[in-house]
């Protein structure tokens, strides 16, 4: 796509700068490796992230919120399974101010209002869980990744949120915000030398600590499971089936991504869409998804359908996956799927904010920011034998089926 340069700050922070001339806004991102043993306290990473916006030694929460809104900055700190992402997207004229602001919240946050933040998060989760889909997705992830940090879903967090305290937050913060864990990404109409000087000044003093990262154990699913939630007033059943699959660093990441496109994520032309929606009229939404994380991946097929069709849909999933496991895809379908991924990447790299995301993401996931540009070549190298192989390797084993429907359709009358 566009050229970028890699630098190392004085304390070792790996930094990526991509200059895109004549663009009005600059994206500033900090990615932090976050798979720390302490995140076995569910919700801790989220609470820590939220507290970065709740007050520093010299600024109140209100002043922080005013700064962000007055300058119209898109600002977020999100905790994901393997990393935290701090993201700021602002007009070029406000960029220097944003760097000072981020420096302050990273160095001087007080982490005082843990209890209040937990209360707020609890409320937001409760609101979210009134959506049937959110409930069924939650139930899938927590069961497939049982006793693993990837399984720390909304409902698990609600159960354990009382355990979160200020000491744990500060310890966690100190453990992960270290130079070797951090990648900084800047994308916009900037001058590299100016930015580097400023980054060194603001973030070059962050000290190394002795903590290292303990990698997660690789999750493993022993046997098939069906998990259900009864909800009496829904018109549609939520039907999900998931498998634990390969991690993002695995060589199978790319073939499995192509399989996902063929099966259920190309848009309107993937197999599940054509077979279950166009031909059988079973649903408005039907799709597959592949979420590749650092220690493992989650492959899911999803449909929302009239409750009496649950079994027909599960059989439909089985049939479509079965075809991928027994019949090689045609050369044309394979090439179409490759082109779909390659073409769509342009769409997802249109803004500076999107560009920064992918550079930081791949770098932080240990694949290197260059991976984003190598993808095309790697995609082209995948063969139909690869598709057949990954279909058998990953989608034959144990799976979890998550259903949400009125109880009479769950065999629970």
């Amino acid at each position: 796509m566009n050229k970028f340069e890699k630098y190392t700050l004085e304390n070792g922070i790996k930094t990526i700068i991509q200059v895109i001339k004549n663009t009005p806004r600059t994206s500033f991102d900090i990615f932090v490796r976050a798979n720390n043993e302490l995140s076995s306290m569910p919700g801790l990473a989220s609470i820590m992230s939220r507290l970065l916006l709740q007050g520093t030694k010299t600024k109140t929460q209100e002043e922080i919120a005013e700064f962000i809104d007055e300058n119209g900055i898109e600002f977020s700190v999100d905790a994901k399974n393997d990393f935290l992402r701090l993201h700021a997207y602002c007009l070029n004229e406000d960029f220097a101010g944003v760097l000072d602001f981020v420096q302050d919240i990273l160095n001087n946050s007080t982490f005082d209002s843990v209890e209040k933040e937990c209360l707020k998060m609890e409320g937001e989760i409760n609101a979210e869980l009134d959506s049937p889909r959110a409930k069924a997705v939650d139930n899938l992830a927590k069961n497939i990744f049982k006793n693993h940090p990837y399984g720390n879903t909304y409902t698990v967090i609600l159960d354990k949120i009382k355990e979160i305290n200020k000491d744990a937050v500060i310890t966690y913060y100190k453990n992960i915000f270290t130079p070797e864990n951090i990648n900084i990404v800047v994308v916009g109409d900037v001058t590299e030398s100016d930015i580097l000087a400023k980054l060194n000044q603001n973030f070059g003093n962050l000290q190394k600590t002795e903590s290292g990262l303990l990698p997660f154990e690789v999750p493993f699913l022993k046997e098939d499971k069906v998990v259900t939630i009864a909800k009496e007033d829904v018109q549609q059943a939520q039907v999900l089936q998931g498998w634990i699959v390969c991690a993002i660093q695995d060589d199978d990441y790319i073939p499995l991504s192509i399989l996902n496109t063929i099966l259920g994520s190309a848009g309107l032309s993937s197999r599940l869409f054509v077979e279950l929606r166009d031909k059988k009229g079973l649903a408005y939404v039907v799709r597959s998804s592949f979420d590749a994380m650092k220690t493992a991946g989650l492959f899911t097929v999803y449909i929302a359908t009239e409750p009496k069709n649950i079994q027909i849909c599960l059989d439909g999933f089985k049939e479509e996956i079965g075809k991928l496991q027994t019949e090689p895809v045609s050369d044309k379908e394979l090439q179409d799927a490759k082109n779909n991924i390659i073409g769509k990447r342009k769409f997802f790299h249109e803004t500076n904010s999107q560009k920064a995301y992918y550079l930081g993401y791949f770098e932080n996931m240990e694949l290197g920011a260059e991976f984003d540009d190598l993808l095309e070549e790697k995609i082209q190298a995948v063969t139909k034998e690869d598709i057949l192989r990954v279909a058998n390797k990953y989608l034959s084993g144990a799976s979890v089926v998550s259903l949400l429907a009125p109880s009479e359709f769950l065999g629970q009358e």
Partner: protein
Amino acid sequence: MAKIIDKKRQDYPYLDRPVEIYTLDNGHKIIIANKQGDLVNISTWVKTGSIHEDDKISGISHFLEHLMFKGTPTYPAGDFDRILEAKGAIVNAATWKDYTFYYVTLPKGQDDKDFGLVLDLHADMMLNPILPEFEIGPTFSLDEDAPEKRERYVVIEEIRMREDQPWTKVYNALNHSMYKCHPYKRDVIGTADIIASMPRDTITDYYKNWYTPENMTTIIVGEFDGDEIIDAVVEKFEFPEKRICKKPTWEQEIAQNQTEYMENTAKINTGFLIFGYHGAKASNLRDTILLDMVGIILGEGKSSRLQKHLIEQPKEPIFNMIGSDQYHFRDGNTFFVQANFQPEHKEKAIEDIKKEIEALSSISEDELKKAKKKLKIRFADTAETVSEIGETIGYYLTVCDDLGLFADYLTIMDSISVDDVQNAVKNYLSIDKATISVLIPEKE
């Protein structure tokens, strides 16, 4: 071939060249916007939505939108999606109260060859849909099983999906109450029994009446050299027969003069509510901007009043989420506050919001400044991607009938004072004009 009878140029902020607006002798409008980069967006906007529907055909605009993807004499059902998605295209369509639009975004390919392909496919889909009986599926009664499930059934599943969402439930109840006579009162998506029983002829008649050149605007956004592009678009959009739209009339809503309150229940654990108010017509840009500003000051971002007073400041907030915004509609916008709250505190939640809206009679200079900056950035946002540019142009031409408004936007916005905002609050947001829709958990 249709002839160009008018060509206008219109400055579009943040683009290097003015946007070109062509009007053809059949009434079809074609817009070319130049945006550098590999991606191109093509869309056609049709002036058809729930605004043109009645009780018998509620949901037909949206049903037709689904069926437009079901093939032409040249490209059978499925080809459009498959051919374009194999080029990495994002293909979709949307129907709302005032419009239906169809769009494709894709890399334009070497020597624009994929653009040529998408233009061909898109124009063909807009002009020559077969709306095949087989793909639509037979009519049926909801009491019995559908004899065969095709696209008719997909739409019914979409209706069910939406009705399972608490936010849809609370919004639909609000909408039904805010409009007593205007066609906006109906859900855009219609109802399952109307869709189940709608014959194909009704749909083809609707297509013929509404998909006429003067009701359609086609917008191309991307990087192109020279003038060949407009010729290519005109050539591809050759309407097969003369179509003239039968203009319907519809009742306008009478002004609301007392607070309306409605309460529904569902099997949920939290409470949902929306306060709705009638705003100006979307083409009244000044008043539209004024209430957009109120939406920012009241409920957008962590520094907004609702966030600050009802979530950040209380020790134990009773709200889980809260915000405010405005939907823009041809015959009158909807300004709303929406919140999720702890249901045991329902009365207090409603009172708290009422107080915050009353307190808008006094706005500070700082709040106005913040609202202006945020709107400026939102405005810059609409020039960042080819799809945003296409949508913005489509919206102004279809809902406001005037792309010029977009060029005036920043000037109008800059001229607004604190007094103007306070007056807008007085005009539009008094409590006797509020409609309040609440959804709370069913009692066990």
